[in-house]
């Protein structure tokens, strides 16, 4: 039984990272309707930015994290302005194709700049084991979960209380109506892309502390899609819950069956949820009209 809880805790830790990446994905999808296939690469980007900060620019950990997040934010805004602003109103698959192209470019640029070998951070966030209720938890796992919880709280406040957050919700609800009431939709889209990229990069920053930094990290970032869909594709708490669920299932499957079968279980649960509740756990059903 102890092993079970151990897997669950480990799952919650990686799951909160998936949740963060999924949160970034949902932020972008909800306000701009862009189904971002490059979301996994934004996670890789965050991990490599942190590596550059710590190893190349010799920054201490906390400033390095802040610098990577700011750079990611700028990259996200730049992506929106240069690539996605001209794509507004184009069909879904056209935009999807552009995100695939961006994913190719980001992957290739990372390999050109940092090389294709694995990297390890020269120093990490604290990672000593802590004993809580007879379970061994690493400080890093606690930090990961704590950061995610903080992010969720910050976003909840941002969307309820701040002017910009309210504007983003209004735009997500109805772009034309929000523009009529004086909201600058382009600015909202920019903020959504900036925040979505920064959050995915935050997931990457945490991931870089948990394991080595390689170009293959983007495959883990792909788990943001099932996480987002489980949550209902447009729900922010849903993305986090979906991420946690997927992390836990993945760890349990790895622990009890095998590492190779983990994906089968993760996506099997996704398939089951889709067939029973096609609109996700937190989403709302829609009705088709002729």
């Amino acid at each position, binding site marked *: 039984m102890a092993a079970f809880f151990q897997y669950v805790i480990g799952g919650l830790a990686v799951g909160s990272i998936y949740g963060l990446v999924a949160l970034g994905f949902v932020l972008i999808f909800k306000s701009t309707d862009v189904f971002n296939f490059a979301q996994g690469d934004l996670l890789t980007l965050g991990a490599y930015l942190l590596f550059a900060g710590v190893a190349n620019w010799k920054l201490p950990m906390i400033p390095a994290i802040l610098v990577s997040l700011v750079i990611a934010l700028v990259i996200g805004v730049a992506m929106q302005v240069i690539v996605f602003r001209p794509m507004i109103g184009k069909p*879904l698959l*056209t935009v999807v194709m552009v995100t695939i*192209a961006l994913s*190719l470019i980001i992957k*290739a640029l990372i390999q050109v700049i940092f090389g294709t070998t694995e990297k390890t951070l020269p120093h990490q966030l604290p990672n000593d084991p802590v004993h809580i209720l007879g379970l061994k938890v690493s400080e890093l796992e606690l930090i990961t979960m704590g950061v995610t919880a903080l992010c969720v709280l910050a976003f909840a406040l941002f969307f309820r209380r701040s002017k910009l957050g309210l504007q983003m919700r209004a735009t997500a609800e109805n772009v034309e109506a929000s523009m009529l009431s004086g909201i600058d939709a382009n600015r909202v889209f920019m903020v959504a892309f900036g925040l979505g990229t920064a959050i995915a990069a935050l997931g990457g920053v945490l991931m870089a502390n948990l394991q080595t930094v390689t170009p293959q990290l983007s495959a883990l970032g792909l788990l943001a899609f099932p996480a987002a869909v489980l949550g209902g594709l447009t729900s922010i708490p849903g993305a986090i819950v979906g991420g946690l669920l997927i992390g836990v299932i993945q760890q349990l499957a790895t622990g009890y069956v095998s590492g190779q079968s983990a994906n089968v279980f993760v*996506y099997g649960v996704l398939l089951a949820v*889709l067939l029973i509740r096609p609109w996700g756990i937190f989403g709302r059903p829609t009705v088709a009209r002729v």
Partner: protein
Amino acid sequence: MSRMHTNYRQNMRLLSSRSRVFWLLVLVAALWYLPSVLNNRMIFGYGLTDTQLLGVGLPQVNFALIAVMAAVALNLLVGYTGLLSLGHAAFFSVGAITSAVLGVQHDLPFPLVILASGCAGAVVGAFFGLPSLRLRGLYLLLSTLALHFIALYVFLTYQTHNYGPAGITYDAPSIFGWTVDNDDRWYTLLVILAGVVLLLARNLLAMREGRALVAIRDHDVAAGSLGIPVGRQRIKAFAMTSFITSAVGALYVYYLGNTSSDAYSLDFVINYFAIIIIGGLGSLSGSVFGALLWTLLPQALQTLSGSVSPDTFVVGNLLNNYQGQTANIVLGLLIIAIMLFKPTGLSGIWLGIKRGVVRWPYSS
């Protein structure tokens, strides 16, 4: 320009005008001459360097032909029926497994193995299609992603039980005594098969069945109210696509000679999506253009970036050391440019050029 069609019989006619017959003959002649150009590195007696041919040889052309067939199949599903599916790698792997079981383990004749792979694919495809009865758009996409990982796991388990990590090895196939063991023979076989696949797809789309698929794509509820059995047609579309894809998957592994489960990653699927979107959704010529571009351009770009002298200011060294990455960056930028300026893809560009030439000087 072709005249306005007034009934379906005209729509179904293959060689509707003299110019079509002419261009078809030109195409056949060009395809006939191509292997000799690529093998001898010369055209009409003029020698060509490797860089002038962009590093393209017959193997690349063969891979392109395989991609053409698989892209046509995917376009039937995504472009014409409007069903988003990430199951393409899974269908390929069904072909690989079936030919491993029947061709390698039981030594059945090659044509039978290809047919059986197609049939196995159709069954799996119909199963993949079941969620489409209930799910739409992106949700369907994610459900096929689930099936993708399940199929891959089956492949991996089968491979580790029977062959080990080195993968499955396939012998050169023979068709009624004609052994397909070099690139020239493969080229002949693949050109013929690609022609057959294109012809079948074209005929399907000119008929009632094909129009039903397009109607479902454009509005499923409306199509249903017109009496089209939407659910059944969707499953059929999945089955047809996966029949072709699995048969192509079997050809693909026989051509490669060796395969392993990690070849069928999600990137593999995304490549095919890229092919049909760049080529043009809902266009057969688009699938052909897209497949050719996607398979030949990286090779061409790598050759070009390798041929730049390393002394060139700043970029020289970079282009030489990171040929694959440079190719990806250029490809990515190219896709963004196409999507930005011509979202209908290569087939849209081609149509624009054709109209411009035909209507000159009245074209805008």
